[in-house]
């Protein structure tokens, strides 16, 4: 009798989960390029629209809150442990993000993600472990974490190799009274024939054109900046550029 009860309880447990929406696996790959060619680091080979010759050194950033949208605008949020992902071009494992989607809907028209971390979630001590915790953003600038650290060297006006850090995070108002959420949402259209395969993992590749951070909307002359973390105007210009830096590369 006791065994029968255990069997019945267990079977009911299984069936309970079977009626939930399907859990679809989605893998996002992060690809980095400069004007459609794979990004090459540690070589002085790139020139931006302002004429700065530059060499890429480091690129680390956060992507969060990935969501799929149907034609009707119905959203379905993709899930991971904390819905925030750290990307570091020097760490191959960080270039892939495994997510899941609990939905029976198979047809979606677009995907969106947040570059950086929304202000409400972007709090100091959110991450305990390196490398994500090494992105800490100063408390007096609002705390939380850098959205991005893009470090490079460029040839300055005197012909010397200079260091340049495009570091983005919370901004601060001119009167220093409020912090500004500079994170932004990127929307990318999915191919019209895209249908989620609920039985297998789906792969979506998102490509960042690094050069766009200096060109897309605002022409950035690196000679004109030192640090930009406490310069909201500069960060805003970079973020406007960055919102145009991503494209959907492939969907499988």
């Amino acid at each position, binding site marked *: 009798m006791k065994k029968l009860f255990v*069997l*019945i309880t*267990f*079977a*009911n447990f*299984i*069936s309970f989960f*079977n*009626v939930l929406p399907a859990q679809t696996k989605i893998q996002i790959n992060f690809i980095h390029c400069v004007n459609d060619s794979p990004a090459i680091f*540690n070589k002085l080979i790139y020139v931006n629209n302002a004429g700065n010759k530059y060499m890429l*050194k*480091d690129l680390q950033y956060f992507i969060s809150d990935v969501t799929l949208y149907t034609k009707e605008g119905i959203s379905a949020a993709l899930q991971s442990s904390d819905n925030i992902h750290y990307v570091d071009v020097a760490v191959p494992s960080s270039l892939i993000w495994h997510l899941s989607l609990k939905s029976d809907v198979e047809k979606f028209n677009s995907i969106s993600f947040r570059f950086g971390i929304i202000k409400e979630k972007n709090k*100091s*001590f959110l991450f*305990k*472990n*390196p490398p994500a*915790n*090494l992105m*800490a953003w*100063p*408390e*007096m600038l609002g*705390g939380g974490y850098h959205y991005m650290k893009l*470090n*490079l*060297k460029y040839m*300055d006006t005197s012909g*010397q*190799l*200079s*260091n*340049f*850090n495009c570091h983005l995070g919370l901004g601060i108002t001119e009167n220093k009274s409020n912090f500004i959420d500079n994170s932004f949402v990127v929307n990318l259209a999915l191919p019209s024939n895209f249908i989620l395969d609920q039985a297998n993992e789906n792969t979506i590749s998102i490509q960042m054109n690094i050069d766009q951070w200096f060109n897309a909307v605002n022409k950035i002359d690196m000679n004109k900046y*030192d*640090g*930009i*973390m*406490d310069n909201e105007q500069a960060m805003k210009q970079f973020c406007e550029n960055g919102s145009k830096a991503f494209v959907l590369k492939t969907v499988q």
Partner: protein
Amino acid sequence: MQIQFFKRPIKKLDLFCFLICFFLLTYSCISRKNKSSDKTFSPEPYSINVPLFPDYVNIPEDNPMTKAGVELGRYLFYDGRLSGNTEKSMLMSCASCHKQTHAFEAGLDNPLYKDGHMHGITGKQTPHSMLPLINLAWNSEGYLWNGMINMLNVKLGSEAYKVPAQKPFDFQNIESLVWMGIVAPHEMNGNVDRTVAVIKSEKMYPPMFAKAFGSDTISIDRICKAVAQFVRSLVSANSRFDQYMEGKVKLNDAELNGLNLFTSEKADCFHCHGAPAIPLWTTNRFLNNAKDTIFNDKYDRRIVTGVEDDKGKYRVPTLRNIALTAPYMHDGRFTTLRQVLEFYNGGLQKSDYTDPLMKYTNRGGVHLSEKELDDLEAFLNTLTDSSFITNPAFSNPMPRNKFFIQ
């Protein structure tokens, strides 16, 4: 007929899951029964949990920390016979150089080492100045200034350091660091067999090894494991700044201004050394901090990576207890904290190998005022943990014993 309780008939998969669960349940009962009658060795664990520190702790599976292991390691750490010698003039222990009063660094006042410049028992200079033994259990990037001992290492021994290859010392963790300390010519220059024999001959040790490892067998492997356990126990997390973060004390205006400068673009210390939310106060990364323009140190980061671009790169040291750990930099070129601050303020040397985070290199430094340098120094002093350097659990266990070195 179906039982109404089910929403659908039982499928093969459900039955399979049920059988798996049944098997696991049965197995757990059996294994628990076995454990209850198991009389295997189970020493009391030693915990080094610090709530704000990373979850990752660098403790190998075959050397879990135990109270008996840490205590044995403490004795061995201070025992001058670890070098394999018993003559007073030839005694050398880990504590000969790693002084508790200096956060387990040599310090400038060490009578054996002028200006804190280290040499081994034979007088051979160490390749680099010393790094303190602070919170090493949380180091995920590798040990020594160049990170040569790291979890990804696949080479046994080191030709450059003249340390022979010997299993199980895989140069991946603190156990190998201890072994290197015993055998390296620039450190104890010890003979492993002699060290083991000398430690075996001391009556107090066999019972301590039995308590720590389950039998009184004394081997170099166990010696290194015990010392490594003690080194991992050297946790510093109670500085005035920690107490400030816990709301227990207040910082004065100069210290607070120093903190703000430290984490500002103006002084820009935090990108390499961390911030309140990086409580180890180091990123543990390997960077070229614009000290030089010529790089001829064969022990820099290149020894690990073989990458030319890693010229002049060294570990970013922790700033915890930084006021106690002079001399500074990999070669100990600065003897005071003020000299270090002045270097970053106006002494940066430009080269193609300087890390991009050193963004003020072209103008020679960050150019703070004297008052700002004072404040920065005041803040750095708040990272001194006086309970760490006075903790009896880390001190010499037998100060009156002639073999034990303070």
